[in-house]
């Protein structure tokens, strides 16, 4: 008689994250993923080919500008492979971040009418982008295999086993930044303008268009403070055999992501209950 299934209260404890609910709504998560894919490419001519065009064009542009015009070193690696390697993983991070960053503002319409665990939406973005990354990895692997046969400067090694972990870390890092920003933008819209701009800046603070090895020691700590750095460097090291691989750096990125993710979860959870009144 005294059992209640649901209690609606003004505030719940910060650690009460209702993660069990997310599992109950897992079907919704995958339907959102499906919606994202079907709707984006439904009225395009090239359809999913766009998945390939983006990284290819970016890699070519980087090759021309940073490789040939600016003459930035690629640690003796084929330029196109070097850039493509960084771009592929970076794209996953930046897409996840920017897309999750407008979770609340873009979905205000649905959120205002129906209750479901709001976390489903950013999680579905992570999954969508993971699929996209999977497709783009094929492209990268094709180019990689080509150069692997043609040139002997490439030395893949055992750290390839770390790749799934790196991808997971990158996804969660993007998600954590994204949900924190989306939570804060419900009240302070200024942040919205910072996102695209900030992500771009962050890219130049990550070893995408240059190897970590050419960064002068004086500034190295700045680049290393960026949690993306060691993930990208390890990724490059695994496939190409060139780059900085250091357990300490990687541990730092892992710890950073973990802390950021929990902070994000808590902030997100606080905001999801009240944002309808401020949005």
């Amino acid at each position, binding site marked *: *008689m005294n*059992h*209640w*299934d*649901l*209690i*609606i*209260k*003004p*505030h719940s404890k910060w650690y009460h994250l209702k993660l069990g609910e997310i599992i109950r*709504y897992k*079907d*919704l998560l995958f*339907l*959102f993923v*499906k*919606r994202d894919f*079907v*709707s984006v490419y*439904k*009225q395009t001519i090239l359809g999913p080919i766009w998945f390939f065009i983006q990284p290819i064009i970016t890699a070519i542009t980087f090759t021309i500008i940073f490789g040939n015009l600016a003459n930035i070193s690629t640690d003796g690696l084929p330029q196109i492979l070097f850039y493509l390697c960084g771009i592929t993983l970076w794209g996953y991070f930046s897409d996840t971040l920017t897309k999750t960053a407008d979770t609340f503002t873009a979905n205000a*319409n*649905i*959120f*205002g*009418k*129906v*209750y*479901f665990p709001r976390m489903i939406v950013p999680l579905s973005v992570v999954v969508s982008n993971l699929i996209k990354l999977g497709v783009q990895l094929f492209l990268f692997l094709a180019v990689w295999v080509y150069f692997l046969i043609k040139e002997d400067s490439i030395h893949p090694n055992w750290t390839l086993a770390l790749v799934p972990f790196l991808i997971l870390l990158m996804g969660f890092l993007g998600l954590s930044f994204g949900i924190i920003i989306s939570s804060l933008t419900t*009240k*302070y819209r200024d942040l919205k303008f910072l996102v695209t701009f900030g992500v771009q800046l962050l890219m130049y603070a990550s070893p995408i268009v240059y190897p970590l090895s050419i960064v002068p020691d004086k500034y190295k700590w700045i680049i290393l403070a960026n949690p993306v750095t060691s993930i990208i460097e390890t990724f490059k090291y695994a496939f190409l055999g060139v780059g900085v691989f250091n357990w300490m750096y990687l541990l730092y990125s892992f710890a950073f992501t973990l802390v950021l993710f929990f902070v994000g979860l808590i902030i997100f959870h606080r905001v999801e*209950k*009240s944002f*309808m*009144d*401020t949005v």
Partner: protein
Amino acid sequence: MSKIVLKAHNISKQYRLGQLGTGTVSHDLNRWWYKLRGKEDPYLKVGDTNDRSKMGGSDYVWSLKDINFEVEQGEVLGIIGKNGAGKSTLLKILSQVTTPTTGEVKIKGRVASLLEVGTGFHPELTGRENIYLNGAILGMTKIEIKRKLDEIVEFSGVAKYIDTPVKRYSSGMMVRLGFAVAAHLEPEILIVDEVLAVGDQEFQDKCIGKMKDVSSQGRTVLFVSHNMGAVQNLCNTCMYLKNGQIEGRGTTKSIIESYLNENRNVQLTGIIPPDFYRLYTNGEAFFRKILITDLEGNVIDRLAFNQSFKVVVELEAMQDLKNVMININIGTTLGQPILYAVEKDNSSYVGRNISKGSHTVEAVFNVRLLPGKYSFTLGVNYLANGNTIDWVENVYFISVDKIGYNKNEVYPWDDVHGFVEPDSKWSFK
């Protein structure tokens, strides 16, 4: 004793008025500072009750204040009230779209809320894909939807277009599809907002029918509407919200009556206040006063059976009006219209021209109203296109007694059948 499935305890909701701007950060900091010192939130103390017509002194307003109620299993509860009385806020809290500022709600069983039909429909996806998506948003699992898919498609009546993107649907088809999904939810508690306001009569009847099914299966329904007919048809109990507080809770009939009776002031003085709730008005003219008098001009609020009476109305035109007509409607206390009287001399009547300013309109009624209570609704509109200028519903009430106006015309029976006695001529062969 029936089982209580929903219990609202002291729920209140505070909103901040005006724009969120420069004050936001300072209020946030202030709040945090109070909290740090273990004190109460300073902004929770201020705030006025939710009365739109008056300007409050503070930036905060209580949209709901100390709401307490319980709902039993199988109850179909209608929630009525004027716009802005807090109905939608209450539904949003119960649907977990927003949280109460204070208090708590306890619920037993699965809740599905229908604040809108077709939430989350994506225009590029087909009808079938949207059924899955919308169903999942409303809390169904994929397996559940799959099992009911055929039923949903059939109920929606858009089977032929089920594999067409919904952007090609008419708005009516979209609503049908949306409701079809919602109708096949199987929650223990169903919360429905004015979804019936959309769609044609047939569709509305279908919705009401479906909700009746739900309640007959012993499930609980909370239904918000302005449509008193629908509320009466569907609900066995009612709750009346006014200015964010519960004004009444009881049987549907008594609550609707008290809701419609609410403007007691009008009844006493005949003055219709400027903030009187108007369903429609375009601001070009306002009814200011209504009185019922006998033919000698004495104000009355009871009529003897078979007594003629006069309705005296004061209308203030804010500008010159051309070709308008004034109408007086008599209805039941539940708002059901019975008679509709229009000023019209002959078939070539083109309406009345009214100059700016106040005017008094008098209409003499010779109608044999049967004993009971009746409400008056006033309207003024353009004759040509029927566009409403002002419309005040159920603004005045009058009782008809069984005592006849002429001594030999006393209403003879205990039961009253119908509302009006027609002038009928009989013959028997």
